[in-house]
């Protein structure tokens, strides 16, 4: 198992190198002179030239990339053009907020999706099945930012239950963003749970258990669910990328002080090092969560665990 984790971590290195190179290359295409951005339009040309030299902007692409990577492995994400503060500090300060939102929305998604998917499968082709699948289709089709706006409209503006934006009211502030983002993920999870549950309850061993006279709820929870959850875990893992993208939009709607919102503000301020830092942190997080999901399979499915050895 440990050998497997090490192997996977080593395999991550070339991917992360590729990702950073790609992102660095794309953002390097951005027009405009960073030195001019920092000093302002009225700056004297010789000052700009001096700053360009100091920042190493005149070096070839590969040298600048190498320098960035050298700093990155030491945990340094560069310096913001706007505030002249280290990007790393800004990102670290916001990371807990983004992680909290990601975790709570995943919990919301699972709490909504599992019952919907399981009951839809058990009561296949009934009204309940139809309704729950319709709800999950809505989840796929509603843009997360529209869902967010509607939640703000009804629960903040009309009912006044939750704050409209920000994170200064603790759990109360967290509810609406988590529901908006969670609702989006619920859809795929519910649909997969339903179809894998349908497949599982038709298996021979379930028929055997039923023939033995076990009560229905025990058949479902103790025997069917455990096997049916394997594809569900896969989908939860696959959704993580979308969730990170969705969290950028959700943070923007609810003015949630996370990395996504910081990234958007940095883009608007043309603060390239900050944008770069945010995307790198997202990409590394994405890779690590994917690894984690792979490891979780092993705990659910002994057949997969056997392959790790």
């Amino acid at each position, binding site marked *: 198992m440990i050998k497997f984790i090490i192997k996977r971590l080593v395999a991550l290195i070339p991917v992360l190198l590729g990702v950073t190179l790609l992102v660095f290359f*794309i953002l390097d295409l951005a027009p405009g002179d960073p030195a001019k951005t920092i000093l302002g339009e009225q700056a004297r040309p010789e000052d700009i030239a001096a700053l360009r030299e100091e920042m190493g902007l005149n070096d070839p692409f590969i040298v600048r990339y190498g320098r960035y990577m050298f700093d990155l492995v030491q945990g340094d994400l560069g310096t913001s053009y706007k505030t002249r503060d280290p990007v790393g500090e800004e990102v670290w300060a916001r990371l807990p907020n983004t992680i909290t939102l990601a975790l709570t929305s995943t919990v919301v998604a699972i709490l909504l999706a599992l019952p919907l998917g399981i009951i839809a499968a058990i009561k296949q082709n009934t009204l309940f099945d139809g309704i729950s699948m319709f709800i999950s289709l*809505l989840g796929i*089709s509603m*843009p997360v930012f*529209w869902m967010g*706006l509607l939640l703000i409209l009804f629960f903040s503006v009309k009912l006044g239950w939750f704050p409209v934006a920000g994170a200064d009211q603790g759990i109360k502030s967290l509810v609406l963003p988590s529901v908006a983002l969670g609702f989006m993920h619920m859809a795929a999870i519910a649909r997969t749970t339903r179809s894998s549950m349908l497949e599982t309850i038709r298996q021979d061993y379930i028929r055997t258990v039923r023939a033995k006279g076990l009560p229905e709820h025990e058949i479902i929870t103790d025997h069917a669910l455990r096997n049916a959850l394997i594809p569900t875990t896969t989908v939860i893992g696959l959704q993580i990328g979308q969730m990170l*993208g969705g969290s950028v939009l959700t943070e923007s709607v609810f003015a949630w002080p996370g990395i996504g919102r910081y990234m958007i503000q940095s883009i*608007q301020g043309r603060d390239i090092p900050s944008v770069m830092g945010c995307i790198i942190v997202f990409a590394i997080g994405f890779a690590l969560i994917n690894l984690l999901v792979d490891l979780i399979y092993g705990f659910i499915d002994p057949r997969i665990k056997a392959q790790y050895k």
Partner: protein
Amino acid sequence: MNNVSAVTENEQISVKKKSQFADVWKRLCRNKTAVLGLVIVILLVLIGILSPIIFDYETQVIKTDYSNTLQPPSAAHPFGTDEMGRDIMIRTLYATSTSLSIGVVTVIVALAAGLVLGSASGYFGGKVDMIIMRIMDIFLAIPGTLLAICIVASLGNSITNLVIAQAVSAIPKFARVVRGAVMTVRDSEYVEAARAIGAKDTTIIFHDVLPNSLAPIIVQTTLEVATVILSIAGLSFIGLGIPAPRPEWGAMLSGSRSYIRDYSYMCMFPGLAIMITILSLNLLGDGLRDALDPRLR
């Protein structure tokens, strides 16, 4: 003698092809939700084509009218007017053409690139496969929306850059689907036969391999149009999408944010339009998947 048998064989093939298409069509028609999806998609395409003809862009879509701002829905303005006095219904309808055309163009670009990369990868295997797929893995290691944001943030937001950004994030998905589909037919006997009579690799790929691996590609294409439209709306919502004043659903929703307290109707219709579009494309895509591959049912 040989010639005669070749002709009859050709006829048989064309007859069989027709019946296969009819078969798929019949299965699709039996699926009520898929038909609903198809009907809505056709309606949306009609709206997309007709609205630029019916409405004048300069005077009806983008012209500000400060005597008419923030009117609630009425007979004259069924969806109301926005903060600049523009009719929200006309803008919502007009935005259909923007979103659909960008969605379709992006997917065509991504599909073309994905077809070339994926079929090369799946057909040749070995080193070619490894190099192409490792590069695709790097693109897939960045969540699609973030990659698109990164590209637009760097190049600036114009419609062309938006298409590039979305296409780049969609190419790896197509390459993967095509590669998988090609690999399943690569070793079949008719491909071997084509190789035996000395057909060129490109001929085999485009003549024999791809037509037989179309099903998953068609499904992926339909679903990807939905993804791209949703993503463009998202980018526009955070100000990185379609530049103003051209109407776009996400941008319209973003504009409605400041008025949500007193003019909540403003955030209803563009959102509904996005939802209906994505919903119908998803219904159609799911229906096509079932119709093209009955084994999956």
